């Protein structure tokens, strides 16, 4: 067994960290949040230049064919810097394309930093059940017509292309009858309502009114999209888990630093045992979470679907628990400063909180873990 990163991975992490420190500081980030666009072209160019956009793309399409562990390294660093660019959305979208084996040209454009993707999967009623789809795709003479509303699509308005989950047959909550498409974000019949999210990101509600797509836009078989959707969502979860690790490392380090410098009663507050033990708990949560993020990144590539689902859900559930504890305690230990919007700690806490609400929360994933056949089959 070997838990070490390769030299390339370490170098890549260092380069990203330097880029964040130099070009994506806290003030810079604040300006991006407040800008009309909500993202930064310059930053996207920077990520492309570093190779972060080419990393997940296969070599045949000009990428580096990075592994889930490579992506773990990147997401940790973007988490540490609380980077709000549409990287997660684009990489998750790219995974749909990779797994479908279609639209290689789009993958090439992603690697070159020319195209951003968003994943229009959630709906008003669906909560965390990605199979709960009311948006319809009906057969037309030369393709499909899509109708419906997708909600809280991360970076939906900033994307050039959208991955859309639709119902092509069956009842609203069936896993059969789901079809997945890639659609031009500016196609006729699409309207996007862009808004801010509490963590500084952007999201959109997207209405599809009789949007015409060709047969070629189909990413799965007709009605057979669930396995692909489930697998890519799991991939997305491993990215979010890795991002959480980076944020938790940063917020824990900031809190430890605060305990060593903030003076009350004539001593650094880190001299008080009640705070020391809180910090020790945070450390332990951090290490347990790190173990699960690592395990998920290793098992995401497993051919054993149940093993993949089990591990990914276990990771999201455990990391969700750790993130809540660490985030809340970091704010508490920072005292009044922790509840202002002025310190990175507050922004990290907010991002940890929104990750918990994205692609299934702790309870959702614990229930999914329990629902796997192996849970009850005690050896």
């Amino acid at each position, binding site marked *: *067994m*070997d838990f070490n990163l390769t030299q390339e991975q370490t170098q890549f992490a260092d380069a990203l960290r330097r880029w964040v420190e130099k070009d994506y500081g806290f003030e810079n980030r604040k300006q991006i949040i407040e800008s009309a666009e909500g993202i930064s072209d310059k930053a996207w160019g920077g990520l492309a230049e570093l190779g972060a956009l080419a990393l997940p793309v296969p070599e045949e399409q000009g990428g580096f064919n990075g592994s889930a562990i490579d992506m773990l390294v990147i997401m940790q660093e973007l988490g540490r810097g609380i980077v709000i660019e549409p990287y997660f959305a684009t990489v998750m979208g790219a995974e749909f394309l990779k797994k479908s084996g279609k639209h290689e040209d789009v993958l090439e454009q992603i690697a070159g930093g020319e195209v951003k993707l968003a994943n229009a999967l959630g709906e008003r009623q669906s909560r965390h059940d990605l199979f709960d789809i009311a948006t319809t795709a009906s057969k037309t003479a030369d393709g499909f017509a899509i109708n419906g509303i997708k909600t809280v699509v991360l970076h939906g308005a900033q994307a050039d292309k959208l991955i859309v989950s639709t119902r092509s047959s069956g009842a609203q909550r069936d896993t059969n009858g789901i079809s997945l498409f890639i659609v031009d974000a500016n196609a006729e019949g699409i309207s996007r309502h862009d808004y801010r999210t509490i963590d500084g990101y952007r999201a959109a509600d997207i209405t599809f009114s009789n949007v015409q797509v060709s047969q070629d836009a189909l990413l799965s078989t007709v009605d057979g999209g669930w396995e692909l959707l489930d697998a890519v969502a799991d991939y997305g979860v491993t990215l979010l888990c890795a991002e959480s690790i980076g944020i938790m490392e940063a917020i824990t380090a900031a809190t*430890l630093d605060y305990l060593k410098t903030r003076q009350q009663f004539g001593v650094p507050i*880190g001299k008080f045992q009640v705070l020391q033990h809180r910090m*020790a708990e945070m*450390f332990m949560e951090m*290490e347990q979470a790190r173990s699960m993020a690592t395990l998920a990144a*290793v098992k995401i590539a497993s051919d054993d679907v149940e093993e993949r689902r089990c591990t990914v859900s276990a990771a999201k559930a455990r990391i969700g628990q750790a993130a809540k504890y660490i985030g809340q305690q970091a704010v508490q230990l920072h005292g009044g400063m922790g509840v202002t919007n002025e310190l990175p700690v507050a922004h990290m806490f907010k991002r940890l909180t929104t990750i918990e609400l994205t692609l299934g929360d702790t309870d959702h994933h614990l229930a999914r873990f329990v629902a796997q056949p192996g849970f009850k089959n*005690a050896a």
Partner: protein
Amino acid sequence: MDLNYTAEDLAFRDEVRTYLEANLPQDLQQKVLNHKRLSREDFVRWHKILAKQGWVATGWPAEYGGTGWTATQRHIFEEECARAGTPAILPFGVNMVAPVIMAFGNQTQKDYYLPRILSCEDWWCQGYSEPGSGSDLASLKTRAEREGDHYIVNGQKTWTTLAQHADMIFCLVRTDTGVRKQEGISFLLIDMKTPGITVRPIIMLDEEHEVNEVFFDNVKVPVENLIGEENKGWTYAKYLLGHERTNIAAVGRAKRELQFLKRIAAKHQKNGLPLIDDAVYASKVASLEVELMALEITVLRVISQDSGRPGPEASLLKIKGTEIQQRLTELMVEAVGPYGLPFDPAFLEGETEHSIVGDDDAAPLAPYYFNFRKTSIYGGSNEIQKNIITQMILGL
């Protein structure tokens, strides 16, 4: 990053598994798997079987009769023993006093004691805690005064695990009262048959006689039983603490107990359905299983980092490991519901026939739960472990 065992590791695992299948006596295995109490003879019997194979001292170098295994091999061995349900090799001789003798003892001591530990000729117990010295161990008061070629020992040790079976006790004693408390302590080996030693049982909350008080009344100990130098005992004790933490997380046993828990949760019913189908109960089991998955990886990470000698990270393993063990026993008692009440000590000691209601699985579980409350207290309480994390890792 590669989380797979190598082909050699897998071959080693198979070798251990095959050996255990052939050599672990079924009656011992059943006692362990069913949470019954082990007698002195049970422990000694298993120790001697493993000794014949040369697998008692997995942490010792080969020159002293140890296996010389890598950290990964030791982990695999411990996992397989837990999976099979072997009795434990008690740590007091093999993992606690032996490393101190190897590191600080003289040649005569090594030649005499180490083979006797390997063969289980001597059963060792640990004389550390005293009534007034628990977490603050260095405040210990048991006195050893030099008189010619003997020490005269007076005082009291407590929480002495299985002292009623022991041939030898290793003790921390005060040999100098005029210096800083850590600097006046010595490490003495004492024969339990020496006149002046009295062992008094302490009955724990599960009514088991597992620990004792040991009284020393003018006990004459030859000076050649001193380890290393006089007044350097605290240094040796700290060295020992590093060894006490091998397999501290006990992940292997927890994995086995989780399977047991799921079996009884499938057997006992709630609302006319198996308990494991109850969403609230299942979610508790799932949380525990996830914690255990995480701890297993954390343990492997620690092993892969420092060739099996965990530093302060051992405190994390101890806290998380004991939390999981305790939670397992808690959920077991919850699973059997009212059958947690009937209590039959004779059944726990190995009587196969028992007179009480309930089933064989359920009868030992409440005592097991109560017994395991000790785990977050012994070996440095979990609060002391948090102090170690804050000081050694976080630098607060």
